[in-house]
């Protein structure tokens, strides 16, 4: 297992950046997820770590050793792709043992390692079958087994759950994370699905437009997004973001609303903004319905999600999402008053789009 370090790594295709210069440290045993919409540079970053793509500038080290110009096969990594890339003419056993046979390991040793990994992934009964006869979830388990059977410096996974049904995806997500807890292998995982990233990662690297937007734990990117992009991208739905005018302790918000900010925020905004435009951000669960609440909005729509209800409130031409009890029911256009949990309110600069801290 290895610590992976990227130092001022970038990638240019012609004159445009696929990945702008970035620094990143993936600690030994850490599960790091590269997250972002398509075209954000996450897969290119993963491919540069693997050596499948060369860097334009910068240096990549594994445990301090410069691997920047090493061939993928010399980097000691295991790759898992979205599409299973199994050999259809071989049995699952042969598929899993393939990387070991390529290294000429003794037969007994191969057998021991395959059965160990097969047990872990609960595919012992499938070893004699051909991949073509298996479900998508089982095929991906076999592909994972083939990656796990070696003890590489790092696992690199590119949307390994992307092609699976929702039902398999959730259970495989938990299995991969559980495997990681047991094995403690350094893992870099690429996905566009923020729920997957949050659920699995020790550390999330949020990317957009070829640039790293934020690096943090799942709870950090959720509660303290570094900019408007991260605030919107993380969470379902994303953070409520309302443009307002700040002056002396209060923010004027859409729909004739006035929000009094906390003493702490007052000090912060006094310094950072003085008097002027801010974006107020808060999560749906930070809304507290209250008869004498300071803010108001009318019910645009309301829907049951099973365990809870999501209310959508109109504030002028903006919509605020508010999460509440599952029994909550309001007719359309009902006027409701609410407060915000002040310790969960965040502020952003509308020009730079960065969070005000």
């Amino acid at each position, binding site marked *: 297992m290895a610590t992976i370090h990227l130092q001022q790594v970038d990638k240019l295709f012609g004159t445009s950046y696929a990945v702008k210069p970035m620094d990143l440290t993936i600690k030994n045993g850490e599960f790091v997820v590269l997250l972002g*919409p398509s075209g954000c540079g996450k897969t290119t970053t993963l491919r540069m770590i693997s050596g499948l793509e060369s860097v334009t500038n910068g240096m990549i080290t594994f445990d301090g050793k410069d691997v920047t110009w090493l061939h993928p096969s010399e980097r000691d990594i295991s790759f898992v792709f979205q599409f299973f890339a199994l050999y259809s003419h071989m049995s699952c056993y042969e598929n899993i043992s393939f990387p070991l046979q390529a290294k000429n390991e003794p037969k007994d040793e191969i057998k021991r390692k395959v059965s160990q990994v097969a047990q872990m992934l609960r595919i012992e009964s499938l070893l004699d079958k051909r991949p073509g006869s298996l479900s998508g979830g089982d095929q991906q388990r076999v592909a994972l087994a083939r990656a796990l059977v070696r003890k590489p410096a790092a696992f690199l996974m590119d949307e390994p759950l992307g092609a699976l049904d929702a*039902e398999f995806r*959730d259970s495989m*997500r*938990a299995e991969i*994370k*559980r495997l990681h*807890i047991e094995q403690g292998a350094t893992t870099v995982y690429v996905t*566009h*699905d*923020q*729920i997957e990233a*949050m*659920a*699995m990662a020790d550390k999330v690297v949020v990317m957009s437009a070829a640039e790293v937007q934020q690096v943090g734990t*799942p*709870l950090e990117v*959720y*509660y303290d997004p570094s900019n408007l992009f991260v605030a*919107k*991208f*993380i*969470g*379902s*739905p*994303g953070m409520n973001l309302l443009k307002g005018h700040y002056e002396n302790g209060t923010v004027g918000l859409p729909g004739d609303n006035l929000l009094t900010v906390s003493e702490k925020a007052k000090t912060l905004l006094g310094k950072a903004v003085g008097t002027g435009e801010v974006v107020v951000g808060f*999560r*749906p*669960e930070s809304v507290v319905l209250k008869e004498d609440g300071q803010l108001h909005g009318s019910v*645009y*729509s309301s*829907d*049951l*999600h*099973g*365990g809870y209800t*999501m209310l*959508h409130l109109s504030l002028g031409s903006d*919509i605020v999402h508010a*999460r509440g009890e599952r029994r909550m029911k309001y007719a*359309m256009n009902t006027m409701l008053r609410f407060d915000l949990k002040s310790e969960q309110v965040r502020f952003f600069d509308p020009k730079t789009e960065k969070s005000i801290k």
Partner: protein
Amino acid sequence: MSEIRLEHITKQFDDFTALSDVSMNIKDGEFFVLLGPTGAGKTTTLRIIAGLEKQQQGNVYFGGELMNTVPPADRDTAFVFQQYSLYPNMTVYENMAFPLKSPLRSFSKEEIDRRIKSAAEKLKVTHLLERKTARLSGGEMQRVSIGRAIVREPKVFLMDEPLSNLDAKLRESLRVEIKHLQKTQGITTLFVTHDQIEALTMADRLAVLDHGKIVQLGTPEDIYDRPATTFVAQLVGTPRINLFSAIRDNGKLKTKTGNVAFDVPKSLPGDVTVGVRPEDIQLQQGGAFKAKVRLTEPLGVETIVHLQNGDSTLLSIIPGTEQVGVGEEVSFDIAPNRLHFFDGSGSRIQV
């Protein structure tokens, strides 16, 4: 009146039975969702209502009027598909005007203009009206497709997975907007999806289909709180409902694998499957049951906790602001009134 009634509909394709004795009543102005996995018969039901397929048996009524022999064009329904099917070389305006210019209708230019502008405003595409549709994003294209259906002011909307090709964020916002629009317009709407969240959040009522049969029909609350079968119970809700086998022993119900036991009504048979939703398992100190934390999945607003209980894993949900560590011993309670019981065939047992 655009109430829709299906009576004993059966549809076969060669030797494949797509629908078998399906009956339902969709009320005037209702938002009705057909939910089920691929091949359940959802789209076939929609196409029979539109007149695009003909059933072998059974009747379709619109507001009491038998529609079996009425051609699709005379049924006054508007279809929205998963694929946008817009004319790429026409502007958004021309695309939306197209159904109104059909020789079967005779609308004045002014009327066409009025309808398009009003629909465009509702769907927030006014600024796109002069743009060629080839230059729109997926979300914008689907808004225009819905706009093209709305301008006709049909009796019935038929929507076949209209959000499935969009990314998660767009799906979320269009879900809210389509529901709001439907409630404002009050046009009877049938919406097909395989996505349980779409079904729960949008429907006034929904029918769960499987293998050409209705498994359950009811409000989102009925389906979520009183699932008729283990299939329905597992289909709705994320994370999925916990299901485990249990046996009666000395008046108590005990899990076969874990160490969970409940006091239960005497009427319950000896051998049952118990269902409990993750939000109904509450981690708390001094709880009646013990488990070890196997895994946690923080999602932000809440965290999924995998509990190792004997040989089985139970999923629980805790608020995102609370934390537990992997390997920690915890105790939990289960609200007895939130338990679901199913018999050997997977059917709900009423207690």
